[in-house]
């Protein structure tokens, strides 16, 4: 299986690479539209700030490349947020795969949410074999609101979309590459999606 991690300068992707290698997949890091389009699977990672990331994608025409993809695509962390329509982070228009807003946490608890929290209400193949209330690792200040695309929820200050799905696009707010065995299973499930 060929797997491409989209390389757009959005934080450190070394951990994602290592996690996939532990599952026996050798990912290719690329920003080349042709390489991305031909991959069997695409991971859209991201750590950082939304407007900078969107600018970087647009400068390389990667925004339209991502929107045109037909194979399974997995947006992780900031990647999930960028697949949404709009982010409150610097008032940024995003890719709009999911017609969903990304909001900043009200500072009723410490922000960012940093640490392990539960996955609840999991639906579909991404969560095959994962028990209700399993824990995943989060570091984030913004969240995707609940929507018809929500396939898992987490509660921190408010209930938000822990994961989303539409057509060939999947997304997860947590860091699967840092979420122990549960995270590895989620990545394996993404690899196994038909």
């Amino acid at each position, binding site marked *: 299986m060929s797997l491409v991690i989209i390389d757009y300068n959005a*934080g*450190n992707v*070394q*951990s994602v690479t*290592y*996690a996939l*290698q*532990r599952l026996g997949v050798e990912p290719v890091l690329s920003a080349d539209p042709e390489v991305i389009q031909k991959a069997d699977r695409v991971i859209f990672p991201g*750590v*950082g*700030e939304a407007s900078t990331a969107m600018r970087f994608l647009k400068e390389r025409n990667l925004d339209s490349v991502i929107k045109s993809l037909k194979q399974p695509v997995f947006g992780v962390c900031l990647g999930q947020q960028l697949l949404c329509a709009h982010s409150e982070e610097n008032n940024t228009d995003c890719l709009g795969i999911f017609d969903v807003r990304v909001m900043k946490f009200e*500072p009723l*608890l*410490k*922000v*960012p*949410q*940093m*640490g*392990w*929290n*539960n996955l609840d209400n999991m639906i579909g193949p991404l969560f095959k074999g994962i*028990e209700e*209330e*399993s*824990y995943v*690792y*989060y*570091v984030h200040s913004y969240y995707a609101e609940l929507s018809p695309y929500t396939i898992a929820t987490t*509660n*921190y200050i408010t209930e938000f979309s822990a994961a989303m799905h539409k057509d060939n696009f999947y997304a997860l707010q947590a*860091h699967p*590459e*840092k*979420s*122990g*065995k*549960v*995270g*590895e299973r989620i990545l394996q499930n993404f690899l196994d999606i038909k």
Partner: protein
Amino acid sequence: MLTKRIIPCLDIKEGRTVKGVNFVGLRDAGDPVELAARYAAEGADELVFLDITATVEKRKTLVDLVRKVAAQINIPFTVGGGISSIQDVSALLNAGADKISINSSAVKRPDLINELAQEFGSQCVVVAIDSRFVNNEHIVHVNGGRTPTELRTIAWAKEVEQRGAGEILLTSMDSDGTKAGFADELNAVISELVAIPLIASGGAGTMEHFFTTFTKGKSDAALAASIFHFKEISVPDLKAYLRTKNIPIRIEK
């Protein structure tokens, strides 16, 4: 529910784990990658690697170690010790570290915190503070807690937050090595003062100490070294105990 984190700390010298009490009587305790993997399998929520290698030359082994740890460990880890520049941090993050921690270098040049937060994001910048109670005040110490500074701990904690730190690792030098409990009063003051997570360090001796740091001490995470290394308390036993006390704790299913 967001859980409280249990964080074993591994002291690293020239690429090997060392064990000792207050850095006295250090002895080789094996391969850090193996020990890290064991802690991760036992349910540790994160790991901290503290490099106590004396010379800059020998510190280069740290990047190799980080690469090996990142290739094998599936939980987050922080690397600290002797980090003083954007280049140091860049090398460690690119090798796969999730966060770095700075201590004396931040006291010496506080703008380093701003620069690192700007360059890499606050989420990966942990500021470690070593504090000792002197003349009725909590005072920041550097050089492994040996040298007092002019800084008051509480004011410095607020300042590092404002400069962009993503987390504070507060070690009470008064509690460290005593096994008499974490510095709950100081931790609670700082945890309520700042809006970023507080990792309590220094003083862990019993499982009850972890309970009180998460309740009375209001800490978000607790770090300990010797009690885990010397197997006085195991991570699974500690987590099971905290669960019975209704502390939100992750137990992998």
